[in-house]
């Protein structure tokens, strides 16, 4: 049996008396599409921060494939294939879309140590970056400054940056947050089009999106994993209903 | 030996109280709005020059000039805040540094133009001059007064912060600005008042400093470095932190000058760099 793509064991984190992660145990097999849902403040983004190394856990371990990555720096985790996107656009405002993705590609190819050849001379890197942008329908916008892109395009750029690092495990933090309904089609096409080799965990509030894309769902409440299961199981789970809908109403 | 140690501590404490007055306003406003106001010591300088003018030109008694020093600095700060600082609340640190450095340049030039570059003499009232002998050691009266005033003001500030409604709002705004706004606290208003009060305190500090360290147009620059040290070592937004850092700095400076005069301020800067490397958010700062 091959090892899981990503796993956490007994992950704990508190800020003073506020426990944001309590004994979180996760096991994500390869290639599966997981949705992480839960009410606001449940600790979903915190969990991603812990897994990517932006936060240090108080206790517990994180495994990427066979490797224990608990002590690794965030950039080292990215180099091994654990990549995330941000809920709030965390982009490079004054870089063009092409420059931004090329930067990610160059980092992956360890080209950013070189300073004697000019950027356009690295044709392969630029071409690869352009290819990624084109696959997300951003090719025609590649020379525009990031801050001049429309919000939906910026969300796509978030994903482009993540893809440029050739992730094995991709953590998407509310990828469609703030994107109006009519613009989100491209976004979801992109997510659906992600290679089956990539394991995806995405945080989402829109249940339609969740049921459409996820093959398994994890529910988190107050720092703890409440339940995990297939979409049908979760939809029928009484505890989940109570947490989300206050018990009496039907979803 | 012991006597000189006590003397150094005493002088250091007095100097520290002065630094505290000069720094506390900057610490709180930095902690609240993250606005790097390098012109803070220009306000101190304004207070100093107001006292000098009132005493030397209009023969006012020393104590009467102190509230005016406070008020003048506070008013000047409000004027600057309304016109210039407001525009840069969202800007980066560099822009704020540069704007306020520009203001320092202008204030230094204006002071030099009006008052010239010489040190300003000030005649303390007779009851504050001289020294008093306690337990076989002499203590300067003015320094005693500074320590007493400093401690009293600290208590007033801490009490106001803990027990008044305004104080609670200040604490909330420093702790989490967004949350405070969400709770309906008028953060901008609180900041404006705090900024005025902090600048006023600096003005008061500037007035009180004349006899101890002198006043000339370079004051705005010279003491800026010390104030920045106090603020960054003490931790942003912390009155207790400023108090501790100011006292530490005052005593270290006196001790350095007394015991290691060849080293100059080297020790101070070394201690600061080392402290900041150990605790980048300051001794009492958050994050």
């Amino acid at each position, binding site marked *: 049996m091959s090892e899981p793509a990503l796993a956490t064991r007994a992950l704990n984190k508190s800020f003073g008396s506020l426990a944001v992660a309590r004994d979180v145990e996760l096991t994500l097999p390869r290639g599966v599409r997981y949705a992480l849902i839960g009410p606001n403040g449940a600790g979903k983004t915190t969990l991603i921060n812990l897994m990517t190394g932006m936060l240090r856990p108080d206790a517990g371990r994180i495994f990427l494939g066979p490797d224990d990555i608990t002590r690794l720096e965030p950039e080292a985790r990215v180099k091994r294939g654990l990549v995330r996107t941000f809920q709030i656009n965390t982009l490079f405002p004054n870089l063009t879309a092409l420059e931004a993705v090329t930067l990610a590609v160059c980092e992956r190819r360890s080209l950013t140590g070189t300073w004697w050849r000019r950027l356009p001379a690295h044709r392969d890197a630029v*071409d690869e970056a352009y290819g990624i942008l084109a696959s997300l329908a951003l090719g025609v916008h590649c020379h525009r400054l990031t801050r001049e892109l429309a919000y939906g395009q910026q969300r796509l750029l978030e994903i482009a940056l993540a893809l440029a690092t050739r992730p094995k495990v991709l953590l998407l933090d509310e990828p469609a947050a703030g994107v109006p309904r009519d613009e989100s089609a491209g976004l979801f096409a992109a997510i659906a089009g992600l290679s089956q080799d990539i394991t995806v965990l995405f945080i989402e509030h829109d249940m339609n999106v969740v049921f459409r894309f996820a093959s398994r769902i994890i529910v988190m409440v107050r720092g703890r994993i409440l339940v995990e299961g297939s979409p049908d199981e979760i939809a029928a789970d009484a505890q989940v209903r109570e947490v989300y809908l206050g018990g009496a109403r039907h979803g | 030996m012991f006597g000189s140690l006590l003397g150094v501590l005493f002088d250091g404490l007095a100097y520290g109280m002065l630094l505290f007055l000069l720094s506390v306003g900057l610490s709180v406003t930095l902690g609240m709005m993250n606005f790097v106001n390098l012109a803070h010591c220009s306000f101190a300088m304004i207070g100093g020059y107001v006292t000098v003018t009132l005493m030397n030109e209009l023969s006012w008694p020393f104590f009467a000039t102190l509230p005016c020093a406070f008020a003048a600095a506070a008013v000047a700060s409000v004027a600057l805040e309304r016109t210039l600082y407001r525009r840069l609340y969202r800007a980066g640190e560099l822009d704020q540094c540069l704007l306020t*450095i520009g203001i320092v340049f202008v204030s230094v*030039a204006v002071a030099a133009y009006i008052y010239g570059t010489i040190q300003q003499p000030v005649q303390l009232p007779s009851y504050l001059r001289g020294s008093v002998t306690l337990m076989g050691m002499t203590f300067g009266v003015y320094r005693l007064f500074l320590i007493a005033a400093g401690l009293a003001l600290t208590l007033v500030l801490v009490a106001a912060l803990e027990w008044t409604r305004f104080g609670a709002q200040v604490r909330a705004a420093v702790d989490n600005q967004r949350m405070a706004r969400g709770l309906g606290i008028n953060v901008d208003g609180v900041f404006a008042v705090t900024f005025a009060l902090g600048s006023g305190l600096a003005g008061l500090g500037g007035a009180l400093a004349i006899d101890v360290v002198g006043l000339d147009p370079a004051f705005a620059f010279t003491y800026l470095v010390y104030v920045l040290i106090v603020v*960054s070592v003490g931790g942003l937004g912390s009155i207790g932190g400023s108090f501790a850092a100011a006292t530490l700095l005052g005593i270290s400076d006196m001790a350095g000058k007394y015991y290691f005069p060849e080293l100059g301020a080297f020790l101070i800067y070394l201690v600061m760099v080392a402290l900041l490397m150990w605790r980048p958010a300051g001794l009492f700062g958050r994050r």
Partner: protein
Amino acid sequence: MTAAAEQIAAPHRHLEAQIRWRAIETVFWLATLLPLVASPSYLVLASQIAITALFALSLDLILGYAGIVSLGHAAFFGLGAYTAGLAAKHGWGEPLTGLVLAAGVAGLVGYASSFIIARFRHLALIMITLGMGLLLLEAANSASWLTGGADGLQGVRMWPLLGTFRFDLWGYTAYAYSLIVLFLTFLLVRRLIHSPFGLALRGIRENATRMPAIGASSRAHIRKVYTIAAVIAGIAGGLLTQTTETVSLGVLDFQRSADVLVILVLGGAGRLYGGLIGAIIFMVARDQFSGINPQYWYFWIGTLLIAVVVFLPNGILGGLNRLMSRWGNR
């Protein structure tokens, strides 16, 4: 060329077009030759400007491109200046090797301190750079047996450049020397900025949080660029000593760190030529004003600084850029 191939080729062309050497740059550098053919009374000022421009260029690398605010950059300028001075004073007056020595010492200290610098941000970083600059100044002051203290180094005598060009009293050799060093360093920096490393620096400036998330080791990048900037600042300091045959504590003081910051912001940080333009304007203005009254100088530079920050956040070059793009859109 098919439409598909043309689309793919386009990204390169666009990037290449952006970093092409422009005609106006040739005009600029040709104009820098003017003091050599005009009246020699401008040569001394021109040398000062070239040296200051080099210093500003070094600050632009860390401030304009990597986003590191340093209030103590004069430390490296001073280290280079004193190294060159000490070498000459103790018998080795050869300019070029002296300059290499200055660069080396500054670079070494820059490398060592870069480990500290790379770990901090925001106010702590500003204060640490300020503190380190002040530390060095105090140390230089105290070590008067080495540095000459407040009086400065005496007995700095330079040998002829390349064995043939004496440092003449007019300043021809000094200016030509400074200008060539500036130009060569500029070409190097230009190459660096347009490379993937330069792109990474801009990434750090634009969003330091995102960099680790794309696998970038920001700290390593910062250490590298800080060392390079220290080397260049050291070269500028060494040039000053060699062309003026003096060095005193003024090369290390806070005023110099503050001035170069003002210069860079005036011209526009992150724009390669910003430091050069800023240096020209600042030095010429100061030369004019210092005759009248030094206090007026502070007043006007302060007002100018306030105006630039409020109305021209990207400096003069940025303002020109905006003006030209508005013109272009008509």
